[in-house]
């Protein structure tokens, strides 16, 4: 039996291709949503994946540093290093920066501190250039920021030079990451204008004058001798990363550190979980629901298209019935056309994905399983749409041929 569906498609190929392209564009949005969903999960865990560390120590009763703000004293780095089982500790500091360039362009990025000299950024996925070699004024940026090697950026009172370029390094909010040393991060974070510094200095003098030490210099001498003078602490860091010595049990060290009353301790897996289930949870669910909505809309649109295609050839279907065509001839015609439409739409969606997804500002991560799943969804929609068309097709009345 000749293939009626192919012949019907061939007769008005332009219309078929345009229809399939339209559907394909709709399906490409479904695919893009899947990719954005996956990309969001991957982006969210970039920082813990890059920094590593067996344990993350943050401010007491917070879920920092990604879920909420956290501030711990930088001296904690040394305190924790003394704990049995700990091999290495690193300070971690981060802040969001929005920088106005001389040409008026706004650069938005997340600054992440590398714990110089323990961590120079050698584990970063460098595309060009190198890791940090100096403790100050060098930075490694993600290519999404658009700065070339050797470019400079004013941050705080200093100028930083791009020495390395990474790929795919973004924060959970999608901003490109810029790596500098922790000390530079803190310097940028705590930078104050001259007037603010002058006012702060005067305020300190005023506070000291009102204190027991200011009122009576003898108190100051006595406090100095007893070691009770208030310390001027270095600025706090966001978190402390802990690497354990080989063979050490993570839970044991975590339990030991958790007894300290000024900190909370998480394993790296718990940090990832906090990110995925906490920080990006709403966005993740929103995209998931939007994706479901798109699939439903696609199904309705495709159902209507197949129905319209069926209505357009009701006279031919009536004629087929008049000539004594079996039901399976009509079933094959409608279902095959619907599946062909779905297949073309799928190929268009894949093509759009290949061409356009790299141009998206955020990561769109489409994996093979997603492509297979989309094919399955489209096949399901095609069959359902075909059944809608088939119902109409089977109502074709041979009498229509005589009435035409």
């Amino acid at each position: 039996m000749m293939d009626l569906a192919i012949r019907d498609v061939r007769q008005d190929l332009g219309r078929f291709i345009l229809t399939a392209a339209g559907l394909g564009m709709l399906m490409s949005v479904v695919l893009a949503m899947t990719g954005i969903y996956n990309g969001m999960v991957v982006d969210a865990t970039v920082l813990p994946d890059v920094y590593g560390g067996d344990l993350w120590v943050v401010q007491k009763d917070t879920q920092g540093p990604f879920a909420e703000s956290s501030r711990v004293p930088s001296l904690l780095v040394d305190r924790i290093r003394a704990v049995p089982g700990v091999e290495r500790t690193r300070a971690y500091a981060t802040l969001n920066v929005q920088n106005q360039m001389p040409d008026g362009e706004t650069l938005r990025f997340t600054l992440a501190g590398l714990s110089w000299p323990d961590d120079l950024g050698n584990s970063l996925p460098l595309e060009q250039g190198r890791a940090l070699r100096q403790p100050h004024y060098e930075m490694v940026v993600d290519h999404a920021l658009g700065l070339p090697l050797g470019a400079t950026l004013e941050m705080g009172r200093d100028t930083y030079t791009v020495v390395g370029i990474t790929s795919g390094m973004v924060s959970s909010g999608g901003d490109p990451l810029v790596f500098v040393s922790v000390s530079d991060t803190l310097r940028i974070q705590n930078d104050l204008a001259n007037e603010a510094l002058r006012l702060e200095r005067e305020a300190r003098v005023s506070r000291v004058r009102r204190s027991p030490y200011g009122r009576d210099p003898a108190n100051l001498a006595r406090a100095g001798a007893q070691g009770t003078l208030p310390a001027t602490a270095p600025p706090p860091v966001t978190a402390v990363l802990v690497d354990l010595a080989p063979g050490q049990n993570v839970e044991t060290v975590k339990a030991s550190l958790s007894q300290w009353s000024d900190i909370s301790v998480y394993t790296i897996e718990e940090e990832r979980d906090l990110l995925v289930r906490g920080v990006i949870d709403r966005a993740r669910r929103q995209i998931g629901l939007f994706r479901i909505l798109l699939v439903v809309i696609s199904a309705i649109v495709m159902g209507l298209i197949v129905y319209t295609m069926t209505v357009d050839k009701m006279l031919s279907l009536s004629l087929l019935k008049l000539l004594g065509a079996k039901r399976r001839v009509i079933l094959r015609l409608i279902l095959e056309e619907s599946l062909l439409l779905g297949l073309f739409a799928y190929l268009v969606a894949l093509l759009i994905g290949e061409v356009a997804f790299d141009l998206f500002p955020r990561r769109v991560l489409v994996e093979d399983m997603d492509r297979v799943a989309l094919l399955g969804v489209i096949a399901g929609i095609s069959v359902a749409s075909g059944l809608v068309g088939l119902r109409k097709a089977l109502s074709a009345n041979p009498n229509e041929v005589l009435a035409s």
Partner: protein
Amino acid sequence: MNERLGKIVLHVEGLSKVYGEGPTRLEALKPTTFDAVAGEVVAILGPSGSGKSTLLTIIGLINPPTTGSLMINGDDVIKNGQEVVNLTTVRRQQLGYVFQRSNLIPFLNGEENVRLALEIDGVPARESRDRARALLDSLGMGGRMKAMPSKLSGGEQQRVAIARAMIHQPSIVLADEPTAALDSSRGRQVMELFRDSAHANGAAVLVVTHDHRTLDLVDRVLEMEDGVLAEKGHTANTRQ
């Protein structure tokens, strides 16, 4: 010579069709009895609304009758108003149709339209192609069989439609106003094709027509008025 010629292929007895009930009751076809033999072309004349098309759709197994029986090649198809066999199969194997507008399937070319009538009955593609080409060739369509219907003239479309109606060698060919859309010359050509094909294939051809210009090409004329079918007699073409 076809061995079926002269045999009764269609026997209609007491066929009637009533639409509606009570005050809206309309007897479109009063009890009708007649036969048609293989190889003859029978014209059914009558004014619009006289019941010609109703009779044709009942014989074409498209419309069920209210009462009566219908036999094709001596086999019961409808008995006392009830179908006794699978009508789709009978339509596929025993009947051929030609209409006022050729009603070719627009996405199939001429050859494919003809092949379709064979292939829906399970004839292999190669055989159906060979038979379709041979028949179209014999109807003078050898050079146009690959053209799509939209590229064919009215007369060419009707020739393809006749080929499709004849290709599976049906016992009965039903034609509803097949020359209405054609000019006089092409109308005669089409009726000549019916006559020749009916004779070559041993089919009875029933032609509903208003076209008196071509009656000299039919074997017998029946006239329908107000649902009543009456024999108007044989023409000079009647084959003995």
